[in-house]
């Protein structure tokens, strides 16, 4: 079981065992980076925030705190909080810049730009949700986790996850309608 495996690994990780820490990093860093990237939309920021998550993980282990079993849940929560903190510091920034790195010339630039604007609007709409709603929406529909897995990460019942899902989608709908997003999927 994942939890037993995590418990054993975390015990060794608390001793700052290099091999175990490397294995944890290799397994979870891509997940956390991707999760954060999808929330913030900037690779350097996602990279920095991901590194911060893992360094806080190290810090927690060294201080004798941190997860004892639910490692993935702990990392996802830490990542979520890192994103929330990031946006809190940038709260005055209303407009996300167009990311020129995506205009790779292979597709119609105008279409690419339009697509990017739509992506950024969805991302911005997500930020208007409560933190728990954001987590449920992102973990469920972007990370592809099940209700049960999301409930484990958020430490809620599956019923509560479904309610958050419902409300989150409804709130997202209002945000997107207000922002007049045109989907060009």
């Amino acid at each position: 079981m994942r939890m037993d495996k995590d418990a054993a690994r975390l015990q060794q990780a608390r001793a700052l065992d290099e091999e175990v820490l490397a294995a944890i990093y290799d397994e979870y860093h891509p997940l956390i980076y991707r999760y954060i990237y999808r929330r913030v939309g900037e690779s350097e920021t996602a990279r920095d925030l991901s590194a911060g998550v893992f360094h806080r993980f190290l810090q927690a282990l060294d201080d004798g705190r941190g997860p004892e079993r639910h490692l993935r849940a702990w990392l996802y929560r830490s990542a979520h909080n890192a994103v929330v903190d990031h946006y809190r510091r940038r709260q005055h920034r209303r407009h996300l810049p167009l990311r020129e790195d995506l205009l790779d010339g292979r597709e119609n630039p105008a279409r690419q730009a339009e697509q990017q604007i739509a992506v950024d609007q969805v991302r911005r709409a997500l930020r208007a949700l409560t933190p728990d709603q954001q987590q449920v929406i992102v973990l469920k529909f972007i990370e592809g986790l099940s209700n049960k897995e999301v409930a484990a990460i958020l430490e809620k019942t599956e019923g509560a996850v479904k309610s958050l899902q419902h409300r989150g989608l409804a709130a997202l709908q209002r945000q997107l309608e207000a922002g007049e997003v045109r989907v060009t999927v």
Partner: protein
Amino acid sequence: MKQDMAETVDAALARQAAGEGLPQILEAFPDEGGSLAALLRVREQLALLVEESVPELDPAADRAAFLKVAAARRRQRSARKAVSFGPLLRLKEWMVKERARLVTGHHALKERKMSAFLVKAALALILAVGSIGGTVAVSADSLPGSPVYPVKLAVEDARLALNADPAGDADLHLAYAQERVQEMERVMEGGGAPDQASLNRLQLHLEEALHLAAQQPDEKMKQLMVGAQHVIQTQEALMAQRGEGEGAAVALQLRAAQGMLHRVRQQIEEGLQDPNAFRSRYGAGRPEAAPPQPDVEPGAGPPITHTQPITSPQGAPDGYGPGPGSGPGEPGGNPDCVVPGECEPAGEQYQHRHEGDPPGPPEDAGHEDAGAGPGSGPAGEQNDVPGSGDHHHGDVNGQNGGDNGASGSNGGGDGGGGGNGGH
């Protein structure tokens, strides 16, 4: 009932995920047609984020940096055990805590002072009489790598142990941070590079100074913050002088240090503009005599502990502090918890529940968005903190504003109703 609608939406989404078309899904739920269709379309729009390509990272550099920090922490652990004055510092802290625990009321402060005095007397005697006196003098100018450098650090620890006044401790930490910067400057002048342990100590001293600063009256707090800002600016200027052409390992270290310094400087700058937020962020574990702090509001920064000696090689944001928490009295919260994120969770009764379980205690009944326990750790685990600056006490509704206002455009808000999200 709203819970039925939540179940209906979930069932419809499951069908959509399985590839069923919209008309077929709506046919299965004729009573909810209009609103359900809109939600399913929103779900489709989220596919934009799924389809968005995620830029690849070069994993090797970040991984190496992470493992390097781990190795530094391992070395620091060993060094902490080796320093002769370490046990005395721990003795001082233990004595102060134990006496404070046993003695209540207005006598507590006096008892703490007496305990600290006893330790102080013991340490002063050792320093005055011991044969280390000569070594202490020699070590004062030593640099990392010198055989007597550990003595220098031990003397610094001893001075901290001897000083019982938090303001004095803050001044000492700031002075030691400045000393670390000067050491690194001398090392670099000699053609060397700052080592990770020195950078870690610098960060520790800065954060300790800020933590103690948050417990001081406004004027003193500001003075300490400005002092820390100056130390950081000096160190940043030093590092900026290092040109390109450094080896990869040194460049990585310098980048890590620059990231750490930038973050701490940013927190100071924000704190100078908003002292109250700074106090609530840094002021955990305040002594009784400290000035009153504002209540921590949902969305405000969390208390940041002063035991965070870490550098993040990739310049990653740090200092999130104890994690989103249920504070005292929050649903599922530990009523004895005074520092969100640092307390044991309320107990095993808030372990994962399953559908069909009866509505339980506060977590389920009345606030579906409430976190399970302080610091959001899984129940039964220690809650270090996947820390958020935005300090979500059980996830207060409407925190992110917009249409999702506290009262509930959802007809009762995210906290309304009881049970498993019923409205």
